[in-house]
């Protein structure tokens, strides 16, 4: 193979193309296929099984008229912005700290990371206890003598999403940290030596040299955190089950409840189509800037 490129174009990089077959099939058949499937059935009145009884935009009219859906969208926007900011900044700070030849690094790393290993079915319940005004932090501090102490995010309609945010950040930051730590460790030692020789303070080296070098890892972390946000479901179910009322509902929970509990596949598909379109609107320009440009070079 190495003896020069064949003339026929599809034989060029032949082993690479063979190796990429699973990726090509997955992206075309599964992801594109499923997206098309989703869009098509969003125009039907399918109940628990898909049927081809087309009803136009009826499912969308209902979706946009639903106050529950609007709440869900608003919630995911708040949750999304804060989660991305916190997960990446806290994750990076912790990673940079851990990269200082820390004793017991393994212990610290495991403590930050363990939330990621646990099923939300139960950690959601624990967070619900901790944040519950009659069981958790508020009650405990009051028992210590601070009678007027208030920490009651979870039973208030306007603040419940922040209660979920506390648990969500707790869960994902550790993984962002590990990923960024791996990125830090791919940074060439020579850079640190050079900056030390030049007398540049460490924080400056991070901001001016290291972070730009770690762009790829940051993008990876961003995508992982963001895809987790879009799919946020288990945590809400375990912590508040969407309550009080539907005040902490999120799009994935909306989709799931119409898909299975309420047997209206059409409505669920309309909601997921809206989710997919939103993702595309964000992803396409970014992707073009990130990779399209490089290809031309």
């Amino acid at each position, binding site marked *: 193979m190495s003896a020069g490129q064949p003339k026929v174009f599809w034989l060029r990089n032949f082993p690479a193309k063979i190796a990429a077959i699973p990726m090509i099939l997955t992206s075309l058949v599964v992801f594109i296929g499923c997206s098309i499937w989703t869009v098509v059935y969003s125009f039907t009145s399918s*109940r*628990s*099984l898909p049927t081809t009884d087309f009803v136009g935009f009826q499912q969308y009219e209902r979706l946009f008229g*639903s*106050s*529950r859906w609007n709440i869900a969208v608003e919630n995911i926007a708040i949750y999304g912005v804060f989660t991305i900011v916190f997960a990446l900044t806290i994750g990076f700070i912790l990673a940079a700290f851990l990269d200082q030849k820390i004793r017991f690094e393994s212990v610290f790393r495991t403590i930050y990371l363990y939330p990621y290993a646990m099923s939300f079915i139960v950690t959601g*319940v624990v967070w*619900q206890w901790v944040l*519950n*005004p*009659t*069981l958790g932090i508020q009650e405990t501090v009051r028992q210590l003598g601070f009678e007027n102490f208030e920490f*009651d995010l*979870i*039973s208030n*309609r306007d603040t*419940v999403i922040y209660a979920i945010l506390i648990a969500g950040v707790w869960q994902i930051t550790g993984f962002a940290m590990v990923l960024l730590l791996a990125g830090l460790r791919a940074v060439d030692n020579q850079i640190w030596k050079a900056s030390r020789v030049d007398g540049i303070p460490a924080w400056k080296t991070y901001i001016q040299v290291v972070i730009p070098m770690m762009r790829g890892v940051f993008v990876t972390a961003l995508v992982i955190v963001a895809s987790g946000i879009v799919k946020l479901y288990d945590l809400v179910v375990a*912590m*508040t*089950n*969407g*309550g*009080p*009322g*539907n*005040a902490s509902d999120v799009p994935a929970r909306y989709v799931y*409840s*119409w*898909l*299975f*509990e*309420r*047997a*209206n596949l059409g*409505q669920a598909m309309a909601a997921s189509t809206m989710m997919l379109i939103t993702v595309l609107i964000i992803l396409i320009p970014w992707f073009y800037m990130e990779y399209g440009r490089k290809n031309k070079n």
Partner: protein
Amino acid sequence: MKIIKGLLAASTILATAGSAAAVELEVTHWWTSGGEAAAVKVMADAFDKSGNKWIDGAIAGGGNARPMIISRITGGDPMGATQFATGRDAEDLVKAGLMTDLTELAEKEGWADIIRPKKLLDACTVDGRVYCVPVNIHSFQWMWLNRTVYENNGMAVPQNWSEFAAAAPKLKEAGVTPLAVGGETWQIRDMSGTFVVALGGIQMYKDIYINKSVEAAASEGMTKVFKAIAEARTMVDNGYVGRAWNDATNMVITGKAGGQIMGDWAQGEFAVSGQTAGKEYDCLPGLGVHPVLDTGGDAFFFPKPNGDKPEVVKAQMELASLLVSKEVQVGFNLKKGSLPVRGDVDMASANTCMQKGLKILENLDNVLPSGEQTFTPDTQGQLEDLWVEFFNNPDISVEEAQARFVEIIKYAE
């Protein structure tokens, strides 16, 4: 692909050939608590005794089990039998021809005559054919009260909703939460439904739930219901978000709360705590106003086996027949705390509250179809959203809520 399929087929043939004597039937259900498991065991034992084998496929939580059940049936890996709520849950699967037809058995055993109320069997019937077996009756329209809380505070134990509401402020003063509720949406949905029938009366309930009458939905009676719910939302504590129903029941048991509106399965909790009906706790069917019951409950469906397997179908029929038999009905329902689907069985050992329920069942006018049977899950879901929002958001006025209610009923299916 053909080769893989062939191999799989071959291995299944071998597997079935090996165990030709006893047919194994995998039964999926979501009854996993102690009392429920004991009730399932009655069924399983009876089935094992018939020379077959019950393979238990318990998956906790209907929300988890349902996707699995539907996927496996459509994916061609069906279980032998599966629980579903009585109602329209499985309608699509039946229409797609994926369920075994039980009509012959039902006619042979005369189910139409023994199963009461008849609506239960109707809910299993699609286009004149029977596809499921109802196994019990669960009703939601109960209020559970802690007698001691009232007696200790110098009050009579309420006999109906208005007395309960009148006593609420005094309980609050005494530091007791008047009404225990949980945060799960179905709790609030069904509690609100209970208000509709208990305060609005049977006729109004039927007009709305069966005839989908917009006039009834907009009527004075319904306004009264919304007002009562608005009153109820002032009686709760603020720690209820995400609370499980049994934790709410536990508040009543321990005297932290005065009462709870919850289905008859709450009795299991009182029983586990060693309390007796009429002594430590009391029950008010239909909130003490209109003593009625709905006929919610559970049913079993039998998905068609993959390929031609007469021995599996035969085992399915045997199981179906056992489920309605007198022995299984009595044994199962006593353990489950629910009411049997046939009236000709001896339930003398049931407790005071269960006896109240049985008495209500005697007059079929008091028996209503549950929302699951009259509405599609879709409409149910919209109603649930409305009830839950209304209950949790004091900013929504009675008028506003009723207007939305009318809108939902207008398009209800």
